[in-house]
């Protein structure tokens, strides 16, 4: 157990393992994406929203990712903070830009859905506002890390910001119940059975899987880059580049 934990903290080890995972995450992503897209467009139209509801297959997975990546980032930041694990700090900084991109996607695709269905691109609804705050949390994390020269101080400051911001995650999730406004309530993640037909649930889950594997893939690449950047003076990295 401790040997495993120790190896997880070793950048050299993680660099090698991450490299070995890449072909698998890449292949699995393409498989999930192609099948997800196929079912996204072969599912029947919605009885109320017609064809416009197909935006759900990119909007909801993007929104889920925006929250999932935030939790990964905050958790990694927390581990780095408590156990002074450099490897965890690297994962946190590698995750942040991906999370920011998915948050932006959730907001903009939501806007493209809101315009034809609600008649407006944007409202200061609780769900939309809390998701916008999430984007600012990501941008704040990225800006804070970029502004601090010392790597360890930057990691610590970023982790504290990320951990404080975790409070926003349940707010996003429950916003549609606490403030019942314009955004429709959850159809999948609720206690009783999901109120979505199986023909629409399958593409949604496939696309969500595709997005998650895509995140894993890009996170592995970015973490490896971060390892090289921070460890470039060490012997093992120098050894990698000797011919």
């Amino acid at each position, binding site marked *: 157990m401790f040997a495993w934990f120790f190896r997880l903290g070793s950048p050299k080890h993680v660099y090698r393992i991450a490299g070995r995972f890449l072909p698998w995450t890449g292949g699995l992503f393409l498989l999930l994406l192609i099948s997800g897209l196929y079912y996204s467009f072969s599912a029947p139209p919605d009885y109320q929203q017609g064809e416009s509801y197909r935006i759900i297959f*990119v909007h909801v997975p993007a929104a889920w990712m925006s929250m999932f990546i935030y939790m990964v980032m905050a958790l990694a930041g927390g581990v780095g903070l408590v156990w002074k694990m450099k490897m965890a700090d690297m994962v946190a900084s590698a995750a942040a830009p991906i999370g920011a991109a998915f948050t932006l996607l959730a907001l903009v695709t939501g806007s493209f859905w809101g315009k034809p269905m609600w008649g407006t691109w944007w409202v200061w609804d609780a769900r939309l506002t809390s998701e916008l705050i999430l984007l600012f949390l990501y941008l704040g994390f990225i800006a804070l890390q970029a502004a601090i020269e010392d790597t360890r101080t930057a990691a610590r400051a970023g982790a504290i910001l990320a951990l404080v911001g975790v409070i926003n995650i349940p707010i996003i999730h429950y916003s549609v119940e606490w403030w019942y406004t314009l955004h429709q309530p959850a159809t999948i993640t609720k206690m009783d059975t999901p109120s979505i037909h199986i023909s629409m649930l399958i593409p949604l889950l496939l696309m969500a899987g595709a997005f998650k594997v895509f995140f894993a893939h890009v996170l592995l690449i970015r973490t490896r880059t971060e390892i090289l950047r921070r460890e470039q003076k060490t012997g093992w990295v120098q050894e990698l580049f000797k011919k």
Partner: protein
Amino acid sequence: MSVSEFFHMGGYALYVWSSYGLTTVVMIALYLFAKRDQQQIKQQIARRVARSGSET
């Protein structure tokens, strides 16, 4: 569903295809930026290693 019906999206073509298009662009950009960053640091390290190798 015919091809023209497919692209028409029941009148919601603009919204549906903008959403899928933007998602595609953002995901490709995330991937390419990640690859480019890695390429840059690799070249940087390779140059430094080559230089220190020729000095000794």
